[in-house]
C-alpha cells in the first residue's frame, strides 16, 4: 500500500513538470496549427541558461525562471519572424511547419552541443536533493517545488486566456481564425505573441527541468515523443487537456516503472502516443480530429 501511494506521489510530481513542458506546445499548436518539434530542444536551452546562471553566479533556478522565460520568448519572436511568418500562406502549411520545426530542433541541439558539449548536467540548488518525509513516504522537495511552480504558471496562463482582452483574442484566433480577423483581431500579432508565450513557457519549463532531470543537448529527442503524447492525448491545442493528460500518463508511467521495469516507463508515453493517434486522434478532450 505504501509503495502504491509513493509511486502515485512521484508520478503526480513529475506530471506537474511535464504539464508545463507540454502547455507551450499545446498553445502554439492551438493558435497556429504548428506542431513544434523544436519545443523540447528550446526547453533544454532554457535549462542551460538556468544551469549556467546557477553555476557562475549562484542564482537560484526559481529566480532565474522569469529571466529564462523572457530570453526564450525573445528567441521565439525571432524564430517566428525569420522562419514561420513567411510560411503562413503556404499550401502545404502543416507539413512544411513540422519539417521546419524539426530542422530548428537540430539547429538548437547542434548549437547547444557545440557550446556546452554532450556532458550530462543538472542544476543542484539545496532543495533539489532534499525530501519531505510523511511517515515512510517521501516527497522529493525539488519535484514538489517544480510541480507547484508549474501549476501556478499554468493557472496564470489560464486566467490570462480566459479574462484578458488579448487572451480572448488568442482563444478566438484558435477557434476561428477567419472570424477573429473579421472582428478586427490582428491575427499576425496574436501569432507572434502566442509563439513568444509558448516558447517563453518552454524557457520557464527549462528552469524547472534543470534541477529535476539531468540533461544534455540530444535529450530532446526523448522528450519530443513524450510531450507529443501528452499534447495529443489532451487534444491538440487544449491546455487543460494537456495538463490532465500529463498527470494521467506520468502516473501510469510511474507505476509501469515501479512494477514492470524502468526501461518500460518511457515506453508508456510512446505506446500511448501511437495508440491515441490511431484510436482517437482528436485526443480525450478534442471534439473533432484537428490533426487531420
Amino acid at each position: 500500500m505504501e509503495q502504491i501511494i509513493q509511486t502515485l506521489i512521484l508520478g503526480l510530481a513529475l506530471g506537474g513538470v511535464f504539464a508545463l513542458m507540454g502547455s507551450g506546445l499545446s498553445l502554439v499548436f492551438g493558435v497556429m496549427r504548428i506542431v513544434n518539434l523544436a519545443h523540447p530542444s528550446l526547453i533544454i536551452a532554457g535549462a542551460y541558461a538556468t544551469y549556467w546562471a546557477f553555476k557562475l553566479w549562484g542564482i537560484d533556478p526559481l529566480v532565474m525562471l522569469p529571466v529564462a522565460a523572457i530570453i526564450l520568448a525573445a528567441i521565439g519572436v525571432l524564430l517566428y519572424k525569420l522562419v514561420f511568418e513567411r510560411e503562413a500562406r503556404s499550401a502545404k502549411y502543416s507539413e512544411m511547419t513540422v519539417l521546419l520545426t524539426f530542422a530548428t530542433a537540430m539547429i538548437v541541439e547542434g548549437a547547444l552541443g557545440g557550446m556546452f558539449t554532450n556532458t550530462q548536467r543538472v542544476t543542484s540548488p539545496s532543495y533539489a536533493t532534499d525530501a519531505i518525509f510523511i511517515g515512510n513516504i517521501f516527497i522529493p522537495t525539488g519535484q514538489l517545488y517544480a510541480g507547484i511552480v508549474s501549476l501556478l504558471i499554468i493557472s496564470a496562463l489560464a486566467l490570462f486566456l480566459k479574462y484578458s482582452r488579448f487572451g480572448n483574442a488568442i482563444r478566438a484566433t484558435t477557434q476561428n481564425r477567419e472570424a477573429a480577423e473579421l472582428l478586427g483581431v490582428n491575427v499576425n500579432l496574436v501569432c507572434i505573441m502566442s509563439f513568444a508565450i509558448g516558447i517563453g513557457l518552454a524557457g520557464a519549463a527549462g528552469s524547472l527541468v534543470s534541477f529535476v532531470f539531468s540533461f544534455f543537448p540530444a535529450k530532446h529527442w526523448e522528450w519530443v515523443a513524450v510531450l507529443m503524447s501528452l499534447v495529443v492525448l489532451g487534444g491538440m491545442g487544449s491546455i487543460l487537456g494537456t495538463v490532465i493528460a500529463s498527470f494521467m500518463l506520468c502516473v501510469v508511467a510511474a507505476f509501469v516503472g515501479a512494477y514492470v521495469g524502468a526501461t518500460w516507463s518511457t515506453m508508456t508515453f510512446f505506446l500511448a502516443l501511437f495508440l491515441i493517434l490511431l484510436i482517437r486522434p482528436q485526443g480525450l478532450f478534442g471534439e473533432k480530429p484537428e490533426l487531420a
Partner: protein
Amino acid sequence: MPELLDVSSLTAGYGDGPAILDGAHLTVQPGKVHCIIGPNGAGKSTLLKAICGMLKIRKGDVKFKGESLKGLRPDQILRKGICFVPQERALFPKMTVRENLRMGGYSLADKSGLERAIDEIEERFPILRERRDQHAGTMSGGQQQTLAMARTLIVKPDIVMLDEPSLGLAPKIVQEMFDIMKVMASEGITILLVEQNALMGLKNADWGVVLDLGRTLFEGPAAEVMADPRIQELYLGGKKAA
C-alpha cells in the same frame, strides 16, 4: 452626397488563381435589404469577401461614402462601418455567448460602453441572455445565426453583409432570420445578403441583384427581378417558380 457603397468594375479572385469576379458592379439603397442571387460559382461570396477586405481588389474600386476601400485590411473596413458574417457564421464555438458578443466589440476604440451595449443586445434577443454562459458551439443553428447577426450590432455598422444566413436552417427558422434582418434595416442598417435559395431571398428583400460569371447581370427592385421572365427561367428554376 456620395453613394453609401459603390462597387465599380470590380475584378478579384483567390491567391494567384483566375479572377472569379470580372467587372462586377453594385450600388446600394441605404436602409434596404439587398439580396444577391446567382448560380454556384457566380462570384456572390467572392463579391462580399472583396468588399470586406478579405480578398485583394485586382481592378476596379469599392467606394464607401465616397472613400476607396482599396488596400484596406478587414479590421480597418470593419471600423469604417461594414460588418461581414461569413458562411459558417464566424462564431467561436468554445467561447460563451457573452464572450462571443464581447469579441464583436473587439475593434471598438472606446470600451467604456461595451458591456452596456452587450446588455442592450441581450435585452433585444432574450435567447442570448438565457444562454449567455453556454458555449456558442452547443446552440442550435438558428440560435447561432441569431448570435452572429446580433454580434454585428455592437459596432453600430452602416452595412451588414451576410453570406447565406439560411444555410442548414429549417424554413421556419429562416423566416425568423429574415424578420430580424428587416428590423435591422428599419433601423437604418443596410443589409447585403447572398442567398442560394434565390426565391426565398428575393421575397424578403427590397432590392435584387443577379450575379453570374463574375459580373452583375441585373439589378432592380426585388419584385421586378422576381417577375422578369428571363431571370425566372435561368435563375429561379423555370416556370413553376412564378
